[in-house]
């Protein structure tokens, strides 16, 4: 009887997993056909792809007309996108109605921002590379500005000295201990003034007394001062302060009033991507420090009057659409000021967008402040730190770190919101696109124009959101799973 029983004594060797679970088939089954409704979904999406992708690719690439002198060149059977139009109008899209011989000025400002911002934004870039790039940039810049564009004649002696001093400051700084700090100081203290001079031209005494000058002073002072204070912890305090002061006075005196001896380029010629970037950069620069101040005011429990004012401002601005604030800047600001004081259109929009963004920034920063445990405040106080030291050394570094994703998404929103200035008639990227297709030579090319600028906006916004993810990872010093 017992010999009928079958008892397996040794272990059966492992069988390979079923063919449907591994390899290409397993992968396909798991990711695309795991259930009947997933299979249907896959097939539906594939069918939609089949309908849309070839047609889109054909329009965008294969049948596109890359070379055109007017819309007639794109009007034939089976013609795709008329990229020749974008190519022919590219200057308009980038610079608006800025004088062609002055294109190098905004380009230079953009390049400067890029060169000085990259080392501040990405700490992984080695210091030597930063120094090298900045040095080469300074040299190339000098060659370009002095020789390449034949602008020598228009540069007078003091301006030349100022320029050389500026380049010297930067290039000397980059080979010192901390090129990054020099870059930060350059962005904060020098860059605003230099860019105003480059973009607009010399801001002379008369126009300084006008509303434009006052506004430029106020905005740049706020932006420069706030950022300088915030970022000065990158150097030791005294060095930072002195460096900042020197840079500040060099910038203010040399660049703003002498303005490189360049011709004045009126702000109504600003346009295209350049205007969009000017609006976004200034608004970002103003909204962060102003937002921090408003958030601190809102959290100041021992000062109810200040608290009320801050809450009132923040909630009022956040409750209304940006377009009403722009209308207010457009129609009400002239009423608010004494007769004869007149703001430039671009400055008005800047004021509106910056105030709007500050209110949103204040709420983001407040979120960070609320996340800091009370013990941190108390510990700072028990160490004898006064209010400003407590905030700058203990609370804000932690609070701002927490809300970086929020800050960057506010920046992204701000960048997109700059398109609203087209409604009050500023020639930003959007209005350029909208009006360039009303040109009789290029009628009916809305798709190309909108596709192109959508791509431009997307590149900037998507880039910012990726940067925020990178920063989040870098600053995540806590326990990460």
């Amino acid at each position, binding site marked *: 009887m017992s010999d009928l029983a079958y008892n397996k004594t040794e272990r059966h060797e492992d069988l390979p997993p079923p063919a449907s679970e591994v390899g290409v088939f397993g992968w396909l089954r798991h990711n695309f056909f795991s259930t009947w409704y997933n299979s249907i979904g896959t097939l539906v999406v594939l069918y939609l792809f089949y309908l849309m992708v070839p047609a889109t690719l054909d329009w965008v690439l294969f049948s596109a007309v890359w070379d055109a002198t007017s819309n007639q060149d794109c009007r034939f059977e089976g013609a795709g996108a008329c990229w020749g139009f974008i190519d022919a109008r590219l200057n308009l899209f980038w610079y608006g109605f800025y004088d062609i011989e002055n294109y190098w000025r905004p380009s230079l400002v953009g390049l400067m921002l890029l060169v000085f911002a990259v080392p501040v934004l990405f700490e992984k870039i080695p210091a030597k590379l930063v120094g090298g790039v900045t040095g080469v940039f300074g040299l190339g810049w000098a060659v370009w500005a002095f020789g390449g564009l034949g602008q020598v004649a228009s540069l007078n002696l003091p301006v030349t000295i100022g320029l050389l001093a500026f380049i010297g400051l930067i290039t000397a700084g980059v080979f010192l201990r901390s090129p990054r700090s020099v870059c930060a100081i350059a962005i904060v203290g020098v860059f605003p003034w230099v860019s105003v001079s480059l973009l607009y031209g010399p801001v002379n005494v008369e126009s300084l007394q006008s509303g434009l000058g006052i506004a430029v002073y106020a905005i740049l002072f706020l932006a420069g001062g706030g950022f300088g204070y915030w970022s000065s912890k990158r150097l030791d305090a005294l060095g930072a302060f002195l460096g900042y002061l020197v840079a500040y006075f060099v910038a203010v005196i040399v660049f703003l009033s002498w303005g490189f001896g360049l011709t004045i380029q009126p702000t109504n010629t600003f346009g295209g991507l350049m205007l969009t970037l000017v609006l976004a950069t200034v608004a970002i620069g103003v909204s962060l420090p102003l937002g921090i101040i408003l958030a601190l005011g809102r959290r100041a429990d021992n*000062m*109810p009057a200040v608290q009320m*004012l801050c809450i009132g401002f923040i909630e009022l601005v956040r409750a*209304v659409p940006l*377009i009403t604030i722009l209308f207010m800047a457009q129609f009400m600001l002239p*009423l608010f000021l004494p007769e004869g004081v007149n703001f430039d259109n671009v400055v008005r929009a800047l004021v509106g967008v910056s105030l709007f963004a500050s209110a949103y920034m204040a709420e983001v920063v407040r979120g960070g402040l609320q996340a800091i445990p009370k013990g941190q405040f108390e510990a700072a106080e028990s160490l004898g730190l006064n209010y400003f030291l407590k905030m700058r050394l203990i609370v804000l570094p932690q609070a701002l770190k927490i809300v970086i994703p929020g800050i960057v998404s506010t920046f992204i929103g701000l960048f997109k919101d700059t*398109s609203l200035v087209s409604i009050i008639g500023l020639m930003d990227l959007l209005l350029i696109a909208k009006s360039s297709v009303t040109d009789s030579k290029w009628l009916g090319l809305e798709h190309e124009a909108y596709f192109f600028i959508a791509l431009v*906006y997307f590149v900037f916004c998507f880039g910012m959101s990726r940067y925020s993810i990178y920063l989040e990872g870098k600053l995540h010093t806590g326990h990460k799973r």
Partner: protein
Amino acid sequence: MAVEVTDAAPKASFWRDQRNRAIITQIVVVSAFLSLVWFIVDNTISNLDRLGIEPGFDFMGNIAGFMPTGPNFNITNFDVNTSTHGDVFVLGLVNTILIAACGILLSTIVGFIFGVLRLSSNMLISFVAAVYIEFTRNVPLLLQILIWYFGVFLLLPNVRNSASIGDVIFLNDRYLTFPSPIFESGFVLFPIAIILSIGGIVALAKWAKKRQDATGQQFPVFWASLGVLIVVPFLALVVTGFPVSWNIPSLQGFNFQGGAQAPAAFWALLAALTFYTGAFIAENVRAGIQAVSHGQTEAAYALGLRPGLTMRKIIIPQALRVIVPPTTSQYLNLTKNSSLAIAIGYPDLVNVFTGISLNQTGNAVEIIALTMLVYLTISLMISLFMNWYNKRIALVER
């Protein structure tokens, strides 16, 4: 040697005292604020005087003399000859509320669908959802509105070649026109029947829950409710002899007569607002669902709940706590963003009142203040409602 002990704490100097500092700061800030206000008010009064603009709201009674809207999209019966700037205000307000309400409803649906699709285990589907979300979130809304308007709706066939659905709904590059109901006497019974059946359904659901709690027996509430909701109003219509007729649009000459029309600008704005806000809501939904730990799903399966029921009874109620607060601010954004209607000429408040009326009357201060007040009120109302809802679904702790 005895140490002298005093009860009083060492007194800080006047300038080092936190309270004194607070008082001084407040005095400085408030007086700066007041002088700014005084400066502005003073300048405004003298400027208004110089420009000859009469301050006050008297202009609201003046005849507007412009037609802010198409003939058949005139919800408030605006008349170009007799209507005042006050009527312009009302018209704009109604149109703003209309577009905001439609947009909030549709963007919630779109957002939930794409938020769930984004989490799909099907790579292709979640990829498509991700592409939609990333592209929509990173392109300005104003541009999207223009793309929908100029790139989609204006390219539809012209009026004479309108696309039609069953010869009652027509779509062309200017508007979508559809039959409008004409109510006859006795129609009142229909809405009453709907209200009654909704009341019945609520009572039924309560009873079913009570019974299930007591006996464990389930009752098919959903199908029963659906039946009640269809049958009772239909009966009301039968009893009153279908007291509703339809005004069907028909092409006469160059235009459609009869029916109701919603202009292309409305659809373009609605589409743009829906898909833009929907992408943000989809991200909120995704974050909310991901915030519910997987243990909850496993526990539900262990109790024997089916996937659909797990989603409805376990995941969604917990995810809603995370989803609702950020979605509230998306609703507020959508309402404020509806003011971009001005770019494509949809007659909302900002377009007709803050735009055209302001240009005609010059009463900038009053008009902009009133516009801001309206948005402030709408925002407050949405916040209040969503706060109430949030409180209802929030975790109840000890």
